[in-house]
């Protein structure tokens, strides 16, 4: 048995990363390193107003006083901030109005990634904001959305065109002092998406941002701000990839969501940053702060994430349930294969009365991967009738990987009901053989088992992406038989 396990484990081969190519395009790159001058330069490149620069500088000065957090269950390589390029942009006219103004190389790149920027070739019912390195390349379907009063554009454009909205909501959920990486992002963020859904509007299509890192040695620091005004609804999807490179690349993003009274926001992520090679060399270091505020009564924010990429994932999409009867949800599948590490989970902060939260976390570890769930359920004194249900499952493939759970529960209201369930299971050699004996190959058997295990989460994704996510799960575990 022992021998067999070993043998099977040694068969761990590269699940080839399909998106590892580099686009050869002329890029506007600033010198490496981080200083107040660099922050000013970024702001100048983006022709930002004074208030935006002030925000960046405040954040930068605060960041200088901070230390990188050490509490996560991660082995993080030393990050030299003077060795990173903080701004790189494909050289083109800013904010191209029509597709003919977009560099054909860029169109080709996004085509290759399966993200057509031409609207006639669009995915049915999905509007896309495509971001390469530090800038937004193209946002599709803006006119259609504008008819409903929906604003969907790059963050930079929002700063220019909708300054009052940005000023009202920026950093209202993730303050610039929040944490080391969020503060860094506040200082140097490049681009990202901005979205505003007006009162009473149901956004008729999926909104999606696709992030692509291209230039080497660059950090990607995008910022997304999503505002759902009263009684509105939006479903938002984020995808990301990067070329294969031997050195680590830093990604530190911030996503803020505000849901006003009766609004509902679904935010889905399919994270497929380059995970590094099978020996753990290279890969994206992914330090992301995502937080939503259920500001008004009866509002709802739902996070769904399928995390298969990155060398390191540090990410806790959270909900602050301030409005009465507001609801927060977190559905997650996180895969760590080879030497990938993930420390991910959520925070549900119950402030309003009768607030509800649901947490479903499915960790999958293979190879030498280390997968930790870290979650906080906090019920404040006034949160009468708060309810939480948490389910944290771990699936292990082989015996060299690890799964860990760190649930924190803090309840200050006696009427609260908080439930936590956890399971750990293993894909056994006997299960694989049983499938083999029915004519199902080992790869397909793992796909079946893993997708069965993750189904509850995958089902929460918009249809078009659920299929993609299933394939991705299988690919990211290719060869890692347990």
């Amino acid at each position, binding site marked *: 048995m022992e021998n067999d396990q070993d043998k099977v484990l040694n068969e761990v081969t590269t699940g080839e990363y399909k998106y590892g190519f580099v686009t050869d395009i002329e890029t506007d790159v600033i010198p490496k390193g981080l200083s107040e001058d660099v922050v000013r330069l970024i702001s100048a490149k983006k022709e930002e107003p004074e208030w935006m620069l002030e925000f960046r500088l405040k954040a930068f000065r605060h960041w200088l006083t901070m230390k990188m957090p050490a509490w996560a269950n991660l082995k993080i390589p030393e990050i030299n901030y003077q060795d990173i390029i903080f701004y790189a942009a494909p050289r083109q006219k800013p904010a191209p109005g029509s597709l003919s103004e977009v560099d054909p190389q860029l169109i080709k790149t996004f085509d290759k990634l399966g993200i057509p920027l031409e609207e006639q070739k669009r995915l049915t019912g999905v509007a896309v904001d495509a971001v390469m390195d530090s800038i937004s390349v193209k946002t599709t379907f803006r006119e259609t959305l504008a008819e409903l009063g929906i604003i969907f554009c790059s963050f930079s454009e929002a700063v220019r065109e909708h300054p009052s909205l940005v000023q009202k909501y920026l950093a209202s959920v993730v303050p610039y002092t929040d944490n080391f990486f969020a503060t860094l992002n506040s200082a140097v963020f490049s681009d990202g998406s901005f979205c505003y859904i007006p009162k009473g509007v149901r956004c008729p299509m999926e909104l999606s941002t696709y992030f692509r890192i291209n230039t080497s040695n660059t950090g990607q620091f995008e910022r997304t701000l999503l505002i759902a005004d009263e009684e509105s609804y939006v479903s938002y999807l984020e995808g990301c990839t990067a070329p294969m490179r031997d050195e680590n690349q830093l990604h530190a993003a911030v996503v803020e969501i505000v849901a006003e009274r009766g609004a509902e926001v679904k935010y889905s992520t399919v994270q497929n940053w380059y995970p590094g090679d099978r020996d753990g060399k290279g890969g994206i270091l992914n330090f992301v702060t995502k937080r939503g505020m259920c500001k008004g009564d009866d509002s709802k924010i739902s996070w769904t994430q399928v995390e298969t990429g990155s060398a390191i994932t540090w990410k806790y999409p959270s909900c602050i349930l301030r409005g009465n009867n507001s609801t927060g949800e977190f559905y997650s599948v996180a895969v760590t294969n080879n030497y990938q590490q993930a420390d991910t989970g959520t925070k549900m902060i119950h402030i309003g009365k009768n607030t509800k939260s649901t947490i479903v976390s499915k960790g999958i570890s293979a190879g030498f991967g280390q997968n930790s769930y870290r979650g906080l359920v906090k019920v404040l004194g006034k949160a009468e009738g708060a309810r939480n249900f948490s389910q944290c499952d771990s699936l292990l493939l082989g015996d060299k990987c690890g799964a860990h759970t760190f649930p924190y529960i803090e309840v200050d209201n006696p009427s609260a009901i908080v439930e936590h369930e956890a399971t750990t299971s293993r894909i056994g050699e*006997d299960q694989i053989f049983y499938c*083999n004996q*029915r*004519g199902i*190959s080992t790869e397909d058997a793992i796909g079946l*088992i893993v997708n*069965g*295990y993750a189904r509850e989460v995958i089902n929460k994704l918009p249809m078009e992406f659920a299929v993609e996510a299933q394939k991705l799960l299988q690919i990211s575990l290719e060869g890692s038989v347990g």
Partner: protein
Amino acid sequence: MKSEFLLQIKDLKASIDNKSIIKGLSLEVKPGEIHAIMGPNGSGKSTLANVLTGRDLVTVTDGSVTFEGRNLLDMSPEERAREGIFLSFQYPIEIPGVSMVNFMKTAINEQRKHRGLEPLSASEFLSQMREKKELVEIDSALTNRSVNEGFSGGEKKKNEIFQMAMLEPRLALLDETDSGLDIDALRIVANGVNKIRSADTSVIVITHYQRLLDYIIPDFVHVMFDGRIVKSAGPELALELEKRGYDWIRKEADIAEESWITDRKL
């Protein structure tokens, strides 16, 4: 060149962790034949099934196995399955989260692909499910669940026969499919086997009890002892074993008393 045998095992030797388990075994099965293999616990019956299905914890050290004239030992487990070898497991495995429907559909379509056929449409597949469910009188409540998850011992065995009926194998290996079955289930399982058996389909029944052989009448009965077939005869042999036990065969086969006793202690 097509062989007259569906399965031909010659002088097979196999070991697990360097411990020799199958110690020189030969067996020939023609299309349509039913063979029963009996023998005491630990004699190597399941190990033989493992060799035939390609489980890699068993290492073949000598001998040959051909299936329809082709070297079986060269094929991967899934290839053997797609070629038509089916094992009804002595201990069926639970696969939580994988629905029976999804599992069976994948299995059938893999087999069809292997044979150059188009995948079944959803409606074709479902009507096949319905037909075979009736054949083995298996409850829809079971086929709507995850593979074997939480099934009772007897339900698992019935589910094996259901899968067999779905996959229509050329060679079915039933490893103690009768154990743990109540009288009705035993009859149903036996009926299932009899219904799929045809001029082409051969069956190897591994069992400890005559009662299954009352329903599935074998052409041959073999007795396995310590990794070898020590006696082969017609169906009357099973009846005799039921009456007299294994002792007389052991003596007849002249197996060294000492090694037998030490083996039993292990």
